[in-house]
């Protein structure tokens, strides 16, 4: 039914996954002393950056985002500004949630905020790319039976997987193994990235598998 879109999605997801992979490998070659655990924040920002760049480029090229009715420059600028604002707010939101989950309030604020930035780049950025800076649409997609296209379903899955990955990533922290990846926020950010990659793989596969039964309400 949606063969072409699924193919598009699979290839774009492959590019995104390779983006994450490159973001890990390239600094390892270029930056001396780079390691995922040791210079964790560097890795984190490189992943976040690459995910952001790849996402924005791909979705711009694919043209998934809803068509705009007005083509004036001011409208576009305002949309851009609003996107940035939402991204920043989402960073703050994630930061607050992580603190509520028990992260220290002041001591590791930088690490916590970096995790929030990573989560934003994995989740909110994709929302902005797919749905535009439109909170109503976001709420619609994330409520039950709210998906209206294949891309909405994949968005649900990727976002869900990333968040659940970060959530699961917190579990090893209390274990007394004293491993480098138990240091805050390594396990959570690793969990988020692994969850994101899983989501990238799962979404096209699941949609392909269920393509016969998928029906979407039109707007």
């Amino acid at each position, binding site marked *: 039914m949606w063969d072409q879109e699924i193919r598009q999605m699979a290839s774009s997801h492959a590019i995104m996954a390779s983006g994450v992979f490159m973001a890990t490998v390239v600094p390892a070659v270029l930056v001396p002393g780079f390691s995922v655990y040791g210079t964790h924040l560097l890795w984190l920002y490189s992943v976040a950056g690459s995910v952001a760049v790849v996402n924005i480029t791909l979705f711009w090229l694919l043209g998934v985002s*809803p068509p705009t*009715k007005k083509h004036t420059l001011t409208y576009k600028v305002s949309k851009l500004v609003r996107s940035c604002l939402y991204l920043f707010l989402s960073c703050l939101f994630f930061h607050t*949630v992580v*603190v*509520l*989950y*028990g992260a220290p309030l002041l001591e590791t604020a930088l690490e916590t905020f970096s995790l929030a930035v990573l989560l934003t780049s994995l989740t909110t950025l994709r929302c902005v790319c797919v749905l535009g*800076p*439109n*909170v*109503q*649409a976001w*709420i*619609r997609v994330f*409520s*039950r039976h709210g998906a209206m296209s294949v891309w909405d379903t994949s968005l649900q899955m990727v976002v869900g997987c990333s968040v659940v990955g970060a*959530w699961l990533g*917190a*579990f090893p*922290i*209390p*274990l*007394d*193994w004293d491993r480098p990846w138990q240091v805050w926020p390594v396990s959570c950010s690793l969990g988020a990235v692994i969850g994101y990659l899983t989501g990238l793989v799962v979404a096209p596969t699941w949609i392909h598998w269920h393509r016969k039964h998928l029906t979407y309400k039109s707007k």
Partner: protein
Amino acid sequence: MKVRSSIFASLCLILEVLGIALFLRGFFPVPIKSSFSSKSKLSDLPAEPFTGSSPNSSKLPDPLFKRVVIMLIDALREDFVFGSNGRNDMPYTRHLVERGSTHSFVAKARAPTVTMPRIKALTTGSIPGFIDVVMNLNSPALLEDNLIWQAKAAGKRMVFYGDDTWIKLFPKHFMEYDGTTSFFVSDYTEVDNNVTRHLDSTLRRDDWDILILHFLGLDHIGHISGPHSSLIQPKLLEMDDILKKIHGSLILKEAEGTLPYLLVLCGDHGMSETGSHGGSSEHEVNTPLVLISPAFKRKAGMEKPSTVEQVDLAPTLALGLGLPISQNSVGRLIQPVAEEASLRDQLRFLHVNGHQLGCLLKDSTPAYEKEVGYEQFRVAEKSHGNWLKLMVEGNTSEVLTNMGKKVLKQYLEALRAMSAALSKQLGRYDMYSMVVGMVLVFQLLLLLLLAMPEALSSASLVDLPVSSALLSLPFYLLCLLLSSVHVLVCTSAESSCYFCSLSWGLVFGVVALSSALLCILVAMGARRLSLGSMSSGKSPARGGGGWSLSELDILLLVGTAGHTLSLAASSFVEEEHQVWYFLLNTLCLAVFQDVCRKYFRERRANAGQVGSLEDEDQDEMASPLADLGVTDMGSERWLALVTPLFTLVCCRLLRSFNQTGVQWAHLPDLGHWLNSSEHKVVLSVVTTMSLILIYFLVQRRCSWVSKIALALGLLGVFSYRAAVGNVMFPWQHGSRNLSKGTVEARFVYVFVLGILFTGSKDLLRSQVITTDARLKSRGLWEIYSGVVLLVSLLFRAHNLPVLCCCLLVQTLMAQFIWKKLHYDAAQTTIMHYWFGQAFFYFQGNSNSIATVDISVGFVGLETYVESLAVFLTALSTYAGPLLWAAHLVCYLSSENRSSVAVGHGCYCLALLRSVPMAAYVVLVTALRYHLFIWSVFSPKLMYESMHTLLTAAICLFFTTMEQSRSSSRL
């Protein structure tokens, strides 16, 4: 037989408690004892190994010391003496350690690091089992062979001052004694003055051989304010002065030609970074052991003290005083103590020690001859004999000395191996009783699970095929089979087994119960299967039961299962609070999402009905927050939206109130900050605010009598706190002399009883005379408020905000979430259970024995009344789960709920408790040889069992509530 699900659930839970009791009896091992019940005698001593034919002595060598002074400082941590602060805190002791004729060691105590088991370890040399902790509060006399008994039998005159646990353990052993009770933890000067006041006169006299002093002050300071408090240094200096005084007078008494004295400074256990003890962290386990005697070589400088076991002191003292080593001792001689004696004596000491250990090993292991240590001991004994022969023959060459040293080394090696083998032996389990208990627990869990569809149905009736099961042939066959298995096991078991020692009637009862349960299970399983196939045959579209799960349901189920699984890891048991906080946060977020969905979907649906297709721009401009205020139900929506967020913030705040667990327990928390003396004003203000808020939250649904009683009671709570010295009266700034606050506490108790009485009166009236549902819910609420008042009296002052937050969250969630979102009874119960668990940890509990606040057992009591103390301690420890369960009853039986809600809630509560309990019983059995079994898993087992017992009581209460409802309906 049809049973209502609440009765079914309580019945299952009560039977489960019995199963657990049986399991516990099997799990906590009886300590190893020598097969002879008598005590060691000097005449039992082995002869010196001698291959020649000369008259070899079976005497002990001459004692090394004439008088011994044991100065035991409760909770003396190793670094208080040997650490960097030791130089300032205990200057004299430190000087002796560095320059004097002393030996210093770090003595490792075993978990549980609680005073009574440690005293037992110090005097018997054995390692008392975990069950001793439970008996810690009332210590019966120690009947085992011990050092004190041996000394008395040998005619030594002993004097004791200090903790009266000793006097209870060794009644009539001391020539002179003065015990101080350690229960008023807030007192840390008088307990020590009670000891010191006798010191001068005793030291002047000559009529004693052993003087034991047990100082409690340091431990109390630790409990009050932790190891870094400003109170510690003066206390240590005081102790140092006492040591100096004793040492000085011992030196004065020292006469030429007599045996030297020995002064022992030791601690029974350490204290953790929070100041408590009971666990097995480094700081709790490591205690200093300083032996001071002119018989030792002078030290040249500070050396790093070597490590010994705490139990090693008992055999060392016994040998040093020329007494036989007590039979069950697993300790070994601290060799440096005997260093200055002749080589022959040294070898003899080691031989005696080895012989005693060997005997104990023989009694406790069937295959003792294969033990490495035992073989080594045999070899060493043989070479000892050879050496003696050479020595008696008059050989004095270098060779002899070297050979002697070699024998010494062999002996030490053998002792070490035997001691280790014996310590390992201590974890021997009564597997049969454990298995029987476990089988019972599992059968009941399966029964609960199988009955789920019926118990949660709208009729809330469970159809138990009891009569058909009891009349069936398999039941009798099973009874016969199990009885024969029982006979077989009990006749073949070589070790003692509790279940076998039970009377036949009881055993048969258990056997019949178990087989009946099995039959019922099979019958119910078969019925379920046939029903399942029928329903799937009829309507294939419905599939598996037709229960559709929302995200929240999935979260609740996954969370419960995940928590149960997490108990398998010792770290997760230690840090269980993290799991609950994490789950609770996720729950709040899920609820938040539900709320959002409900209100926004509704809005969208409304908008769709109107048919105004929203323009994209409008859609974008209408931010969710902007339009909330405009709608009719605006404020309610607002509150519903804010409630989960508020709960989240509350939880985050409460989390930083009491740091618990192990890894992060040392982090500073608000509780400590509030308790420090500089912030007394803040604490007073916070306490006042919390009490006022508690009043306003609770009084809403009470009758006016209860309202007044509640207000007066809360006032009483404040004056109790002021009398004890936690908070200040605003009009009384000067320092008042502190009392125990007995009068104030009793004042509160009166009101608690009054409120409970009015509540139960209302309940009875609603049940018997009128069928007024409002009266009943008021009665329930009054009972709830009575519990709240009692808890607010028992909670420490800094925990009152926790109680306050608990009530606030309950009120808000009930008002805006549970009612408005129409969660069913099962969901509500699970949420209540989670909240209860989280609040258990919010109030500062953990899964270690150390955090049980036993001082609660003495609120308003002049003397120690065991039953009351246990009741109050249990109540305050489980206040969180209890309050949430009480709230659940009130909520579920409030007027507009369906009549089966209470039954569903009761069933869910029973199931929620049974699942982790059953899983944990299996886990503990599987992990019984785990390294942390005594320090981590056993305390958790105690906590879980206690919680199950409490839940059984709560379920009974639920049942009575439901009963009255159904009778009032008729």
